[in-house]
């Protein structure tokens, strides 16, 4: 019986991230539209879009290989596993031993690899340039991400997300400049990875500087639906990561009573909502960057993360 409950709680987390992902995307779009003095589509629109795309015919290019057809499902699967691993409303769930930060980075890297391959598969110019840029951004963002992982792991003494969250809730970590720098770097990396505004414009479908949209330009029907769902899922993943690492308060850590779980769930949803409102506010206050400035932006994130690691060594010694 206890096993079934544990499985159910883990399954709830896996379903939760998938189910709220389009809603989170809808909220960011709505807030952004309101900030631009437009009404904007209803917050449930992403669900309808995915539903509509699911029922449309999928058009394939003549020279599309099996990679092109398999990639969307592969990307979705990898992103879903990664998103389901991040602790959301409770720590120490059944599979939380596998929720390792480095594994998470690897899963996201795998998904990105598949997406870049799919972008190049048909051989259009846009797909190729999108893949090339995506890989450039990834090669800049991933070292920063790894350094963020090091920072958090050095403070908490482990790379397991669930254990990190528990440490941050229970132990007194104190005011650490390193953690602030790591948060800053994680936000920069998250913006770059999710193709949000200073790096890429998520609202565009035809722009010379687009990255994510350029890769998926050829997709249609159910393939596109799955890719869009994966993109929404990735956004929720980064939100959950920020919430889990830097504001883990409210999570159910000890005994999994109904009250603790409800509190955890409520606080998780509230945190995600706040982040989904803050992101478009940040996006509307900056202008899109030129492609050649990406290394400077992500280099700043890298420098902040490296500084965070260094500063930890000052206070703790070797």
């Amino acid at each position: 019986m206890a096993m079934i409950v544990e499985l159910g709680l883990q399954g709830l987390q896996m379903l939760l991230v998938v189910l709220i992902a389009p809603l989170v995307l809808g909220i960011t779009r709505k807030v952004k539209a309101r900030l631009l003095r437009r009404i904007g589509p209803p917050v449930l629109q992403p669900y309808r879009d995915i539903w509509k795309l699911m029922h449309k015919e999928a058009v394939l290019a003549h020279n599309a290989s099996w990679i092109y057809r398999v990639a969307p499902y592969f990307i979705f699967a990898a992103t879903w596993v990664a998103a389901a691993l991040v602790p959301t409303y409770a720590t120490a769930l059944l599979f939380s031993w596998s929720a390792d930060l480095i594994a998470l980075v690897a899963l996201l890297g795998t998904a990105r690899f598949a997406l870049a391959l799919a972008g190049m598969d048909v051989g259009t110019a846009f797909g190729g340039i999108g893949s090339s840029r995506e890989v450039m951004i990834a090669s800049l963002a991933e070292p920063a991400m790894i350094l963020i992982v090091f920072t958090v792991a050095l403070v908490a003494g482990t790379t397991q997300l669930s254990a990190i969250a528990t440490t941050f809730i229970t132990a007194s970590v104190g005011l650490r400049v390193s953690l602030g720098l790591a948060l800053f770097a994680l936000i920069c990396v998250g913006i770059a990875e999710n193709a949000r505004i200073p790096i890429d414009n998520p609202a565009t479908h035809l722009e010379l500087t687009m990255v994510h949209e350029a890769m998926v330009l050829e997709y249609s029907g159910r393939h596109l639906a799955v890719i869009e769902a994966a993109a929404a899922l990735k956004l929720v993943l980064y939100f959950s990561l920020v919430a889990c690492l830097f504001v883990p308060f409210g999570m159910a850590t000890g005994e999994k009573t109904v009250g603790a779980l409800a509190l955890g769930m409520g606080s998780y949803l509230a945190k995600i909502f706040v982040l989904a409102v803050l992101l478009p506010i940040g996006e509307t206050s900056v202008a899109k960057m030129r492609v050649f400035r990406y290394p400077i932006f992500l280099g700043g994130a890298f420098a902040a993360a490296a500084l965070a690691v260094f500063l930890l060594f000052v206070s703790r010694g070797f």
Partner: protein
Amino acid sequence: MGSLAFDIAHLLAGTMLVLSFVLLYQDRVTAVLNVFALQAIVLALSVAWQSVAQASPHLVVTAAVALVVKGFIVPAALHRIVRKLDIHREIEQVIGGGVTMLAGLALVALSILLVQPVGEVNIITREDLAFALAVVLLGLLMMITRRNAVTQIVGFMSLENGLVLAATGAKGMPLVVEFSVAFSVLIAFIVFGVFVFRIRERFDTVDVSALDSFRGERSDRI
């Protein structure tokens, strides 16, 4: 000294170091001046906090000097120079932004390694010294990498911020020393200011690379 006192000192000193990096990263002259003012204000806060933590009231005077002179007077004067020279819109070519940042990170690592042996005595002193040394080295790096005379001055001033941070972290620096340092910096600033105007008069630019090819020809304006 409790854990909270230590945390706040760490936070303020760390913020100064981060602001040093922001200085390295900025390529707009006015933004550099604003960040420098912010760094001086954080320095004043840090010194003030040290005076509370170490229970040595004379540090309040140092904090006040830092706040007034470096937080307000020097940035205001530099802003005035920049506006007078009409370079406030200029974007400076920072030599290899990424390379500079990497060099900065290496300097921070170096200062941490250098200060490591001190740590057996007192963790607060070690942290403070490491941060201060890093700020000093980053100020030097900024003076080396910039070509604009005004941002070089800012590099020098931020170097001096690091010195003050180091001095207040170590217990019992006499007030006379601090005053003499503050005044010598002020005088250096005045000399710098005069120099900037002279360079500008002669070469029509504050880019000091113009001095490299200068071999002492007399222009008829002087």
